[in-house]
C-alpha cells in the first residue's frame, strides 16, 4: 500500500495472512484431518475391513452407477446447450440460460420433493407408473433423476461459457469450405474446448458422487439397495459406528481432494496460456464455480 507507511502496512500484511491461515486451519484443514484421523483411529486394517462390508460395497456400487449415468448425460446436454446458445442468435436465449441455472438456487431437499411430487405415488404421473409396475421413487431411477437435476447446471454452465468465449468464426469458415457438421465438431470445436469439457466433467463428477439432500428424499433408505455412499455414511454415523462412517467418508474426501488438485492444475494451465500473447484459450474462470 502506501510507500511512506511501509513498516505499518508490513505488520498489517502479516496480521492479515495470519488471520487467514488460522481461519483456514480451523475451518478447512481441521475437518479434513478429522475425517482421516477418525477413520484410522482403530488402525488401517479396521478401516479397510469397514470398507469391505457388503453394504458399504453396495453403496459404492450404486454411487458409481449413478455417476456413470448422470455425468455423461449432463455433459451431452451441456454440449447441446452450449452449441445452441453459443453458435446462434434466437429469441429467449437469456431466459434459457436463466432456466438452466435454476437448479443452483434450489435447496437439495426441495429438488427431491419436486421429483416425489412428479413421480411418487399420488404424484403427477405416479399412478400411471404404478399401473405399469415402474418404480421411480424409493428406487434407483429416482436417485438418478434427482442427481441429474441437481448437477444439471454444472457441466452446462462451464461448456456454455467456453463455447461462447470461443466465437464461431473458425466453425463458419470450415462450413463454407464444405466440412460436415461432424467434422467441424470433432476437428475444430472439440480440440478447442477439451479443457473446459474436462473441467466440467470433473465438477459434475465430484458433485454427483457427493449429493446427499436430494437423494435422501427420494431414496427410501433401503440398505444395500437404494443407499448411495453419502446416505450410507449417514446410516453408519447415526448408529454410532463412527469409524465405519469415517472410513466410508475417506473415499469421498479423497475424491474431493483429487478434484481440487485437478482444478488447480487446470487453472494453472489456462493461466499460463493467458500470459502468452497467443489466442487466448477461454479460461475456466473461478467465477464459474459459484454454486456447487
Amino acid at each position, binding site marked *: 500500500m502506501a510507500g511512506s507507511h511501509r513498516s505499518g502496512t508490513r505488520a498489517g500484511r502479516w496480521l492479515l*495472512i495470519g488471520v487467514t491461515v488460522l481461519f483456514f486451519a480451523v475451518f478447512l484443514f481441521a475437518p479434513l484431518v478429522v475425517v482421516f484421523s477418525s477413520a484410522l483411529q482403530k488402525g488401517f486394517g479396521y478401516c479397510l475391513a469397514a470398507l469391505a462390508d457388503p453394504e458399504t460395497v453396495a453403496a459404492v456400487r450404486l454411487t458409481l452407477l449413478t455417476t456413470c449415468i448422470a455425468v455423461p448425460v449432463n455433459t451431452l446436454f451441456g454440449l447441446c446447450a452450449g452449441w445452441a446458445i453459443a453458435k446462434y442468435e434466437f429469441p429467449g436465449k437469456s431466459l434459457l440460460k436463466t432456466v438452466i441455472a435454476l437448479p443452483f*438456487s434450489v435447496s437439495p*431437499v426441495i429438488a427431491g420433493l419436486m421429483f416425489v411430487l412428479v413421480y411418487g405415488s399420488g404424484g403427477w404421473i405416479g399412478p400411471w407408473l404404478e399401473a405399469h409396475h415402474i418404480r421411480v421413487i424409493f428406487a434407483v431411477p429416482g436417485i438418478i433423476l434427482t442427481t441429474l437435476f441437481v448437477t444439471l447446471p454444472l457441466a452446462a454452465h462451464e461448456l456454455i461459457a467456453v463455447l461462447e468465449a470461443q466465437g464461431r468464426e473458425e466453425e463458419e469458415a470450415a462450413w463454407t469450405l464444405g466440412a460436415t457438421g461432424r467434422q467441424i465438431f470433432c476437428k475444430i470445436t472439440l480440440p478447442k474446448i477439451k479443457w473446459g469439457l474436462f473441467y466440467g466433467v470433473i465438477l459434475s463428477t465430484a458433485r454427483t458422487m457427493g449429493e446427499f439432500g436430494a437423494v435422501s428424499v427420494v431414496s427410501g433408505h433401503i440398505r444395500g439397495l437404494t443407499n448411495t455412499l453419502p446416505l450410507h455414511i449417514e446410516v453408519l454415523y447415526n448408529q454410532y459406528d463412527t469409524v465405519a462412517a469415517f472410513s466410508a467418508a475417506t473415499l469421498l474426501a479423497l475424491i474431493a481432494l483429487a478434484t481440487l488438485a485437478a482444478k488447480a492444475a487446470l487453472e494453472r494451465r489456462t493461466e499460463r496460456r493467458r500470459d502468452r500473447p497467443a489466442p487466448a484459450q477461454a479460461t475456466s474462470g473461478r467465477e464459474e464455480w459459484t454454486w456447487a
Partner: protein
Amino acid sequence: MAGGPKGRILLPGFGMTLGVTVFYVCVMILIPFAVLVLKTASLNLHGFYETVTAPRVMAALRLSLLTALMAACINVVFGVPAAWVLSRYSFPGKRLLDAVVDLPFALPTAVAGIALTSMFGPAGGPGAILERFGVRVAFTPVGIVVALAFIGLPFVVRTLQPVIESLDRRVEEAAATLGASPAQVFFRVILPPLVPAVLSGFSLAFARGVGEYGSVVFISGNMPMRTEIAPVVIMTKLQQFDYAGAAAVAVVLLIVSLVVMSLVRLIELRAGFWRTGVR
C-alpha cells in the same frame, strides 16, 4: 429459424441441439417446478397461510434465515481478508490455501457434516475447549452457523478474488503520494469498487445457507422449535405424507432464494454499468 444479422453463415445442428436442450430443460426443470407450484396451489390461500404460519414452521424459517444471515456475515468478515491475502500477497503455502478454498464445494455435504459434528461435539478438540468457556456448539444454533459458515466461505472469496486482482494499484499509489493515509486509501480508493462483489458474495452465501441440508442435519440435532431448520421441516412433512404442506414450505424457501438471486443479478448489472462508466 436461427436469426442473426443478414448474411450470417448458419452452422449445422441448430434444430437438433436446441431441440434436445429445450426438451431436457422441460422434462428436468420446468415440469418439476410446475408440479411443485400446482401442488401448493391445491391448498387454497387460507390453507397455505395456515401451513406456513404454524409455530413449528415459523420457528424453522426464522432459524434458517437468521443462521444463514449470521454465517454470511462471518464469511464476509473472514472472506474479505482471505481474498485480499490470496490475490495481493505472496507467501509460502499460498497455492495450497488458494486450492483449498474450494473444499466446501468439493467435499460432500454429509462428510462435512459428520466431520464438523465430531470436531465441535463435546468429545472433539475445539468443541471441548469451547465448552470450557461455556459455549456449546453442537446441537445448538451456534453449530448451524458454524456449518453454514463452512459451506459459504468460497462464495465470498471466489467472488472477490477476480475483482481485487483487477484493481489498478497505481490508483492506490497515486492516492498515497497525494498524501492519503493508509486508512483513507482503504476506505476511499480500495473499498468502493469491492462493495458490489462483497454484496453479491454475501447474498450467494446467504441463499445457499437458507437451503443447506447435508452439512447442517448432523450438527444441529433437529429439535423442533429449537434447532430444526426449514429443509428438515420439509423432510418431516414428506415423511408424514403431507405433500401439500411440504410444497408450501418449499415455495416460501424458493421465493426467498429467487429474490436473493435476482438481487445478485441486479448488483452485478449495476456494478458492470458502474465500471464501464468510469473507464
